[in-house]
């Protein structure tokens, strides 16, 4: 057996979830994430796990809620319109402080949109998606290897902080094939003394619930939850920096946009333009520190996105609007080319874009 296997991004997520101990998957097919469900359908019955194609996305996320209440690792996956349907369930998971892994392999929107890759669910993912004050840990892979690694990481973080981890990928990441090493460092799962596993007449009942009858108590719950979120912000931010130290121009990009941008950075460097790349791996918590630091020397920032400009707001916030931030984008299922990004770099370098 070779060290690596050749996998699609979607397959890598499914296999990594199984390696991480997930034995419960609930979902509903939708392009471009269907292979996650298809892989689970093939493998789960062979390893004593549960694959269930629910009657809808709403049913699937509520099944996730049920299994999570029992303390078991559980996941669902979908693509943009399906994630919208899951929005209510995401809020209930947060309101009940239940861990779960949710995968969004984004497609063009809004509405039914199209099946080609997109990053236009950034706001939905990083601002919550459902109702109420809450956050999810949002992980943005930029390779098939990271699709696998961040899935394992996502389960660990979800359990540790009793939150939903979302893998925010795009159609390209889901469909592309790359060699993957599945040799992960699997940590023992976090103890879950809160899980509803039966009292055996030895303890008080555990109650999993998102309804609070007393407003003062609900306020306290929200405040405590945000104290936990603060710890996540302090400890769990992940990002990659590429040639940022001496950069006059810094690109912000994640997922497939970061891969395209890296090519453009290399080309621009050949032309003598000092440009670098900050690739957020956690989109929430957003890696503010590297942007703050870069703003001390960089003249300008460019946010490269497959959206009408969503992460750009976080880049502006992270840099306190000290430097101009311009947008380089394609939407509707289109991907910016390295040439388009290079042109944006040259324009900014010439001071042509404000």
């Amino acid at each position, binding site marked *: 057996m*070779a060290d690596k*296997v050749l996998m699609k991004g979607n*397959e890598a997520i499914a296999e990594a979830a199984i390696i991480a101990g997930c034995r419960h998957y609930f979902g509903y097919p939708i392009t471009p994430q269907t*292979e996650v469900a298809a892989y689970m359908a093939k493998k789960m019955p062979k390893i004593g796990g549960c694959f269930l194609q629910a009657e809808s996305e709403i049913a699937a996320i509520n099944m996730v809620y049920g299994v999570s209440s029992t303390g078991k690792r559980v996941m669902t996956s979908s693509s943009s319109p399906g994630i919208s349907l899951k929005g209510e369930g995401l809020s209930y998971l947060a309101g009940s402080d239940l861990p779960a892994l949710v995968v969004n392999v984004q497609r063009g929107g809004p509405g039914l*949109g199209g*099946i080609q890759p997109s990053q236009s669910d950034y706001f939905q993912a990083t601002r919550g998606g459902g109702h109420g004050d809450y956050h999810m840990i949002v992980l943005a892979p930029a390779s098939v290897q990271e699709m696998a690694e961040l899935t394992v990481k996502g389960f660990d973080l979800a359990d540790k902080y009793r939150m939903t981890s979302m893998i925010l990928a795009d159609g*390209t990441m889901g469909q592309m094939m790359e*060699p993957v090493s599945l040799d992960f460092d699997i940590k023992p799962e976090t103890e879950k003394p809160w899980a509803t596993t039966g009292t055996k007449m030895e303890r008080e009942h555990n109650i999993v619930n998102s309804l609070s009858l007393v407003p003062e108590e609900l306020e306290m719950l929200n405040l405590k939850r945000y104290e936990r979120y603060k710890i996540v912000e302090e400890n769990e931010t992940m990002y990659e920096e590429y040639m940022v130290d001496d950069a006059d121009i810094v690109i912000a990009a994640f997922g497939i946009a970061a891969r*395209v941008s890296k090519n453009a950075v290399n080309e621009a460097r050949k032309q003598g333009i000092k440009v670098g790349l900050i690739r957020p791996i956690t989109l929430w918590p957003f890696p503010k520190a590297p942007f703050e630091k870069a703003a001390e020397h960089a003249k300008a920032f460019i946010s490269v996105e497959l959206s009408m400009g969503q992460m750009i707001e976080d880049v502006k916030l992270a840099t306190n609007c000290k430097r101009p931030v311009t947008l380089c984008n394609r939407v509707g*299922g289109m991907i910016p080319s390295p040439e388009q990004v290079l042109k944006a770099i040259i324009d900014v370098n010439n001071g042509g874009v404000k």
Partner: protein
Amino acid sequence: MAFDLKNQCDNVAVADLDIVNPYFRTKDSLEDFKERNIRLICSEYANSNLDIPALPQDMYAITDDRTLKVILDIGGDDRGALALGRLAPQINEENNFEMLMVINKFRPLTPDADSTIEVMREVEGAGGIRFTGLVNNSNLGEETTAEDVLKSMEYADSVSKMSGLPVVMTSVKEELYDELNGKIPNLFSLKLQEKPVV
């Protein structure tokens, strides 16, 4: 393969019957086929945003036109092969076909002979046609080395022995062809038609 077949016969078509994955389609190579006068039979909606399991409207030409030599892409698993079932009675009746299973030991669901045979039986069950041969296409994408291919020969032999089917060829990316030529029987050089993503 289609380009090679076109060098041998006049009336050649490629049919994309994959109803599952609308992302990567043979239609991407439409212009290349047109240039070589190779007919492409694929869903009208391939490469569009319409995500429905549609079959090509001219799919019956595959069996109706008996002068036509057709390469069929039926997808990689039993769900993909389901569409083939519609044509199976005619294909079996004419009995002038080869059905090749492309195997890759580096894929997660077919790492050994047992699992590969399992997928083989599923595809045959769904498509209603028995395989006639194997193509050993074991690869790790861009990272494939000659050593990887050599290591895969034992796997291909096991699948061959268990299934009773011959390994018709071992396909490798063209960069590895010279290194492996002479070391592996029936070596086929693959020229990648589509550029990998950045």
